[in-house]
């Protein structure tokens, strides 16, 4: 339906952003929301994304390529336009991590990455409709045959 541009952003795990504008919130958390992004856990890849007006709404996020080096995101023009994204260098990609009961149960939502424009500080959660990616992709690959 629309053309895709192949965006593979700069991997950046050292980002703190005080305020990101999500005009449409996230699926399940609708309405305009402002999120703060703060490094978490020392020099690991993780950050906290916290709703500035509703701190109970917060997520553990990380750049996907640390655990998923082959992850490919093709953002369509409509998605890029929603955050005024014109250049791949302006794009920060993060995925939401779901912690399980055990460390090895952690999963990441690869179907719905968080897309951030580093220049304008707009963000959204994309839906990679034709990607085949899972909403709960395990971070820890087991070797079980």
């Amino acid at each position, binding site marked *: 339906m629309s053309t895709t541009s192949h965006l593979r952003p700069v991997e950046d795990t050292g980002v703190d952003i005080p305020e990101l504008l999500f005009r449409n919130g996230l699926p399940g958390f609708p309405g305009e929301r402002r999120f703060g992004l703060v490094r978490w856990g020392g020099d690991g890849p993780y950050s906290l994304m916290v709703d500035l007006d509703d701190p109970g709404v917060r997520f553990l996020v990380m750049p996907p390529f640390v655990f998923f080096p082959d992850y490919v995101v093709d953002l369509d023009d409509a998605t890029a336009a929603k955050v005024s994204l014109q250049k791949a260098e302006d794009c920060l990609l993060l995925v939401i991590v779901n912690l399980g009961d055990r*460390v090895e149960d952690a999963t990441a939502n690869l179907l719905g990455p968080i897309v951030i424009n580093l220049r304008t500080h707009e963000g959204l959660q994309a839906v990679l409709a034709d990607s085949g990616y899972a909403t709960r992709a395990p971070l820890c690959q087991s070797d079980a045959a």
Partner: protein
Amino acid sequence: MLVLTRRKNQSIVIGDDIVVTVLEVKGDQIRLGITAPRDVQVYRSELLEAIEAANTSSVLQQEPGRQAPPSPPKQSHRVFRGRGAA
């Protein structure tokens, strides 16, 4: 919810410029064609439901230190430079 009945090859117009057409009816499967402007996204609803469910269950109940997230595999320092549409 507005309920309409259509036959194969009939269409529905939504707003000024979204058109949904019944292309094929085969058993209990219906193939739909959707024409919409580039800035309107069209998704199978179960995708949005799956993302909503994942988001809801991912909200941190307390500081994540109680459940430690996994340490990353060996450090990768790959940098990707994007390119525009080919």
